[in-house]
């Protein structure tokens, strides 16, 4: 469970996130929506400890990201919005590095790397430099790295962008399975079809403030039943 309590973040006088209060429960796939510059990435960066929080607290499974960062960070796995990380390493070196960071025993590491990279179809590219990978392959490498230590909480920033249909399907299935086991899956996206297919609950943020939180049914009920999600989204975010 991720608990965001009255969180505020400012950049040079501009409020990026304003008094955000949000609980992402276990056992659900939770979608985080909003137009460009709404504060999604800033929120995710605060949850993951990349950006310091100005006001308020964030806990991941009860661990405060500011006060107990190491414990909190061991619990979640984070897929950043850009997969261009450690381009000068080979795929296998990157995954092994992540394995060392999470202190994974060798046998488990070998088994997981084998399973994940074969599922995503990047196994045979593992001995190549990440720099030579396509955007999608890099994304799959990062996702494999994140899932390596089997984190309880998944935090994914635009995880499906750049994935081919098969890998996209694989990841969505993995997300469903993970949530079904009672874990947390929190992801941001622009793609409304994905939200409609995948999410149990959604939160919509605009100008740093929460506009809506609830399940898909509730969201549609607030508006006329025949309206599609796109129109609902545009209305909630004032057509920005």
């Amino acid at each position: 469970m991720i608990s965001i309590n009255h969180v505020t973040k400012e950049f040079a006088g501009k409020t990026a996130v304003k008094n955000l209060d949000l609980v992402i429960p276990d056992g659900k796939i939770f979608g985080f929506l909003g137009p460009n510059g709404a504060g999604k990435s800033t929120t995710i960066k605060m949850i993951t400890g990349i950006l310091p929080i100005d006001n308020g607290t964030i806990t991941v499974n009860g661990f405060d990201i500011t006060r107990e960062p190491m414990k909190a960070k061991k619990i979640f796995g984070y897929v950043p919005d850009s997969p261009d990380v450690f381009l000068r390493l080979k795929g296998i070196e990157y995954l092994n590095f992540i394995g060392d960071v999470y202190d994974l025993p060798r046998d488990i590491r070998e088994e997981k790397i084998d399973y994940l990279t074969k599922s995503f179809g990047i196994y045979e590219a593992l001995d190549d430099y990440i720099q030579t990978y396509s955007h999608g392959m890099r994304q799959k490498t990062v996702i494999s790295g994140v899932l390596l230590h089997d984190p309880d909480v998944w935090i994914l920033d635009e995880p499906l962008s750049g994935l081919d249909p098969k890998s996209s399907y694989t990841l969505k299935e993995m997300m469903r399975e993970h949530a079904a086991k009672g874990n947390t899956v929190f992801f941001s996206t622009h793609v409304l079809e994905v939200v409609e297919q995948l999410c149990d609950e959604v939160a919509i943020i605009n100008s740093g403030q929460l506009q809506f939180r609830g399940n898909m049914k509730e969201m549609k009920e607030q508006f006329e039943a025949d309206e599609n999600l796109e129109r609902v989204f545009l209305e909630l975010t004032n057509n920005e």
Partner: protein
Amino acid sequence: MNKTLRLIHTMLKMQYSMAGKSTGEKLGYLFLLLFLVPFAFIFISLMNSIVATLYQQLAPTGNENALLGLLFVGITFILFFVSLSSILSSFYFAEDIEGFIPYPFHPYQLLAGKAAAPFISLYLTSGVLMVPILTLFGIHSGASFIYYLYAFILFIIFPVVPFTVVAIILMFFMRYANIAKNKDRTKVFAGLLSFVFIIGFNIIIRLNQDPGQTAEGAAALIQEQNGLLDLITGMVPTAYFSTMALNYARELSGLLFLLLMLAISTGAVLLFLLAGQKLYFKGILGLTAGSRKTFDPHKVTRKIKHQPVVAAMIKKELRIIFRTPTFFMQCVVQSLFAPVFLIVILLFESSSSSFSMLGTMLGQFQGKTSLLLLFVFSLFILGVNPASYSSISRDGRNWPANLYLPVHPEAVIFSKAATAWLINLLSILLLAIIGIAVLNMPPGLFALWVGLTLLASWFTSLVGTALDLNQPKLHWTDEQEVFKSRLISLFALLIEMGAFGFIVIIIWNIDAVEGLWMTALLLALLLAGAIAISHVVLKRLIRTHYHNTI
């Protein structure tokens, strides 16, 4: 033409923009400028005395123009060298070219844009020598207005030919060098080329040197007018033409020589653009990154192994430094430069016995004196350790990974400092080889010297890392930006010089400290103190800056 100028403007703006620089950094540049003012006065008065002396010596035999010839020849060689590195980095190493390729520009337009930045560095370099010397020569020879006009025109056009020659050679090389089909390796190879170029140049000069003969020849040549000029500019025609243009500025022949220089430079520009049109795109487009090889699952499995997180971090840092051409050149090759150069000099001079005697001399010195001298010398050779002051900035857009991965901030930062220390180890190893094999140092002195140098290297690694953590440059688009136009190396140098200078002066002046072992002990204690202070400072910086870098 308009489009080309626009492109040049944009490319220069991207390279030299002050946007994103903090007020502190801008103030730093201002201070640097103020600092340079008195320095410039000293420099100009030094130049003045050199020019005046040489002019008085050479004028009686009508050889004063040899001074100009020497200037132009010297400038040509300096420009060759500066062009080599700046063309490589601008034309081939900078990744930004890939962003321009999809737009409808002709190769020659892109080339003109890419040539702008190297040209600025060429003018800055040649300006330092050409502007004062040409002006001073004019003053001493009582030159006319036309001389100064010609000098200005020559200042503008002179870099064109050296630049073109280097650019065409490099473009030709890069066009056909990619047989290996590996961009990174080609980059490193080309970078090493400039390294070998300097060393090789040095060796050739040393091999050709026969002091007696040169002096005799010069004495004979100096008898006839212009004889010395012919000797000096024999290999560099443009230097000869430029000198003649200035020398005969009052006569028609001067104008003809100037027109000849203008024609050669225009021809060079056209040749450059033509060669660029044919070679440049093929050179860059041919540079494919990486190659496909057959996949071996066992090889992959072998790479999966468990190791402590700090070891994994250091390994990752080293891999990135050694595999990124710019990092490799700046952090590894450049720091090896001084020791390798030293070895070359020592090897060629060893026959003259002056250096082989040095080891014996060191043995005869008081233990204290020789240890302190050696210590200062090795610090001078080791320099400021670029791997340390680029520790954080090298990560660039990868930096956030350090923040969300569960690695303790101190583990991240200290493994970066350790990486810088390990890289310095290469230079120390070379120095140690010199000490043992060439200088035949006494074993006790040698062991103490190496031990103290290792300690000092840890101190410089910590200082560099702390400086970079204090103000990292993470938002770069090209790796060069991590090292270029930053004041950090200057700060590192000032702090390190200050600290070591202080330590050495203290020990030097305490008469109670004498003998090798006591000096070493005190040096070690003071170094340990400096290291302890920098540990505290670095830990403090980790608390205050680590999470506030973005």
